[in-house]
């Protein structure tokens, strides 16, 4: 029986968009009606949406993109030195977010770059580093198959984790997480910060390389999936994932030969966010696999450089669509206030881009107090994200939602059609370099990124 014939057998099963009166008329006959809360698209996107709809099979393009995203199977396979794998010169410094000029850097970004110059030995003092600032080459991590939390700075000598896709040929990189307190990613560059970076380079990196060579590769997708069952969101809470990771690292670490193994064990054990960088790199494999699908309006990057918030779409290649980075609405630590907060910063919104973080908040009642919310509010936030996403993740599941997969693959077209903005669950950096984390909270991606992106996609499909 054809689809049209099926309509004519039995009662119609109706959903309505628009005038309530029409829904009421159907209900008056005793037929069930699903009413939508339809809203006109965001201003300035109406023509672009019509042009995209007319030119491409948007649904098919997006199914292709999100299928590639959730089809990746990232594993942590080894360690490398940034300059050896990432196509960067001796004065190249990678950073979080969309492209950025030295003069536009916020406090924590500038501090992190100063720290990295000191670490690389390009400058002997912070003053020298600041003087050198305009001469270094800045490039987004996202352009180098990498992602970095907060300032996200990667310099040539840093050891990086190598993540490879067991289901494809993708690869991504991330630095090792330094822990909390005075750390480079929050813009600190005091001597102990540089010392810790050197320890990471000379001790942590090599020991982990050895551990992975004997005990790897480590299946990150499996750990993340389990961690969501244990109260992580994959962005602001990675305690369960870090614990699961350490359980896998421990046998080869303990069973190995050579010094510093106890230090490494204690360092990973003492840092609840150790897994964050690996979760992010796992996400990066997914979005890179999904990029370049003609006509697709799926978001392949949401990233902030502390000055601007930028997104990319699968169907618009490497172009960034940016808007001023918003200030996070959240709870502040100690005596800090919103006055102390830097604008939103970091590549960590890659987690939301792949169905974690704010999109998985329903899995993480333990985090909601920290970011200033309620458990029921967290569930509602996750539920709201299904409206703007393309799939439910096959392995990242939310127990309280009857193990429904997390909302995965943000569709910019659905964002502008509904006005529902991606919710990001994030830490807040102090605006003064080196102050560190001043709070945590929730932030919505700026509207302007999505309206520009959809307009650009319309131009792109018109050219094709």
């Amino acid at each position, binding site marked *: 029986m054809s689809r049209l014939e099926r309509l004519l057998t*039995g009662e119609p099963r109706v959903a309505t968009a*628009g005038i309530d009166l029409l829904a009421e008329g159907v209900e008056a006959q005793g037929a069930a009606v699903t009413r939508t809360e339809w809203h006109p698209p965001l201003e300035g996107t109406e023509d672009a949406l019509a042009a995209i709809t007319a030119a491409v099979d948007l649904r098919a393009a997006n199914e292709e993109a999100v299928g590639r995203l959730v089809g990746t199977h990232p594993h942590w396979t080894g360690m490398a030195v940034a300059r050896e794998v990432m196509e960067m010169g001796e004065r190249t410094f990678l950073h979080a977010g969309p492209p950025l000029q030295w003069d536009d850097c916020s406090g924590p970004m500038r501090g992190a770059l100063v720290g990295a110059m000191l670490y690389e030995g390009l400058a002997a003092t912070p003053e020298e580093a600041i003087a050198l600032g305009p001469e270094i080459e800045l490039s987004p991590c996202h352009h180098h198959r990498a992602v970095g939390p907060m300032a996200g700075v990667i310099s040539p000598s840093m050891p990086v984790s190598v993540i490879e896709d067991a289901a494809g040929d993708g690869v991504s990189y991330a630095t090792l997480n330094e822990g909390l307190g005075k750390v480079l990613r929050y813009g600190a560059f005091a001597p102990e910060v540089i010392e810790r970076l050197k320890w990471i380079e000379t001790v942590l990196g090599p020991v982990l390389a050895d551990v992975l060579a004997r005990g790897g590769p480590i299946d990150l997708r499996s750990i993340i999936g389990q961690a969501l069952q244990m109260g992580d969101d994959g962005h602001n809470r990675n305690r369960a994932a870090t614990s699961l990771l350490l359980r896998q690292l421990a046998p080869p670490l303990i069973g190995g030969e050579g010094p510093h193994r106890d230090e490494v064990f204690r360092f990973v054990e003492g840092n609840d966010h150790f897994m964050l960088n690996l979760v992010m790199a796992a996400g990066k494999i997914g979005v890179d696999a999904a990029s370049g699908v003609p006509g697709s309006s799926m978001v392949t990057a949401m990233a902030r450089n502390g000055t601007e918030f930028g997104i990319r779409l699968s169907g618009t290649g490497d172009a960034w669509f940016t808007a001023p980075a918003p200030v996070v609405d959240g709870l502040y630590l100690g005596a800090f206030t919103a006055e102390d907060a830097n604008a939103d910063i970091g590549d960590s919104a890659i987690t939301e881009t792949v169905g974690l973080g704010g999109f998985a908040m329903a899995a993480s009642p333990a985090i909601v107090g920290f970011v200033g919310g309620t458990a029921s509010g967290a*569930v509602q936030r996750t539920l709201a994200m299904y409206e703007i996403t393309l799939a439910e993740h096959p392995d990242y599941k939310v127990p309280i939602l009857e193990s429904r997969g997390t909302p995965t693959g943000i569709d910019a077209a659905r964002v502008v059609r509904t006005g529902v903005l991606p919710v990001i669950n994030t830490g807040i950096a102090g605006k003064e370099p080196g102050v560190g984390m001043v709070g945590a909270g929730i932030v919505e991606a700026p509207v302007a990124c999505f309206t520009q992106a959809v307009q650009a996609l319309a131009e792109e499909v018109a050219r094709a």
Partner: protein
Amino acid sequence: MDHVEVRRRTYHDSVRLMQASAAVQKVPGVEVALIAMATDLNLGLLEDLHFDVPGDTTPDDMLIALRVAGGDVVAGALAALDAALVAAPASDGGMTAAPPPHLLSSAARGADLNLGLISVPGPHAFVEAADALRSGLNVMIFSDNVPVGQEVALKRLGVELDLLVMGPDCGTAIVGGVGLGFANAVKPGPVGIVGASGTGTQHISCLLDDAGVGISHALGTGSRDLSTDVGALATLQGLAALDEDPATEVIVIVSKPPAPEIAARVREAAAACTTPTVMCLIGEETLEDGAAAALAALGREAAPARSWEAPDAGHRPGTVKGLFSGGTLRDEARMVLAGLMGAEAAAGLEMIDFGDDEYTRGRPHPMIDQRLRLEHLGATAADPSFGVALLDVVLGYGSHADPASELAPVIEKATEAGLAVVVSLCGAAGDPQGRDLQAELLNEAGAAVFLSNAAAARHAHALAEGGAA
């Protein structure tokens, strides 16, 4: 004093805003209330009402303009507004209850739906409908003002996906016994309708219902489907579907006369159907004729449709004035009158279609809101050049809940003033308004009531000619 307020990015559909305006209007002390989206049109209305027009608005903003007796009235008026705007509460399934979907494709996810009913503003209908189709939903697009190129694209997509696109500008359908939009509670039965005219479809279905014959499905196509541009895509698809439908024994195609090449294409497809097919082209023949042809195809004889004659109270001389809520019935009445009095004389008659854009800007369709038509009926009674008023009343789902209660007092006054009133009542016995009750109320007020629009027109002509009907 005036109170003008703009609520940014607050959207409600026009019907809800009109209901809200009406609710605020009822608050004592409120002289004028305009609650509307800040479109150019509505800003113009605001200016016409001599309100200060706020600058820097977009069509996504909601305007609230109140003219009140005193400042103390404003708070009460705004409270009434907010109460009127509160949508039906979402289902309470605890903290894991999903919020209501925003898009039809979201509603369709994981749910067993097969039809999307779209009445969003015309410029947005294309995106919503295409997405719904790609999600596997047939669509009925009530919205008008959809560019014809988008209509063609949607219908081609429908053909490709084997899904029906009813509309744009489709006001009436009956699918599996459920009326969608403006439709009558007709009995289920053997006649399937493919209709480019909503009121035409309603009228034929009601005439058949009166003759004891029910409807299997009535598939709307939208008013432009048989144009050269659209090429009858939905009509041909609907025809093929009804031909396959075991419940349908006779198919009726209702349309205004299409371009000859399109008519030929449809006739060819109709001839290829195994189910007998009747074409009713309004303007060339009456809806009565169409219903009779369908009955004949079923081997049944047509009898005159029911009427409620009014005692001749000695109406005054004068011409016929038409006060219609739909263009189809108005055009048919004019055609019947032209047959009786000559085309030129009929063309000279004043025959208003209150459903026309000219009369519906800023207010609901006359099938929902009769106020303007009532005013015109009153004015007609006061104008001695008119001897007969001919009007339609359309019942069914979607229409005014009790039109006769508003019309009866005005008709009573009009007949007392010597104006004869003839009503073409489009309704089925099962309609929620109670068709016979409505007919009796109108008849008691002095109107002659006919279920056949053509018969009503003939009666109006006979009265104007001074003879008995």
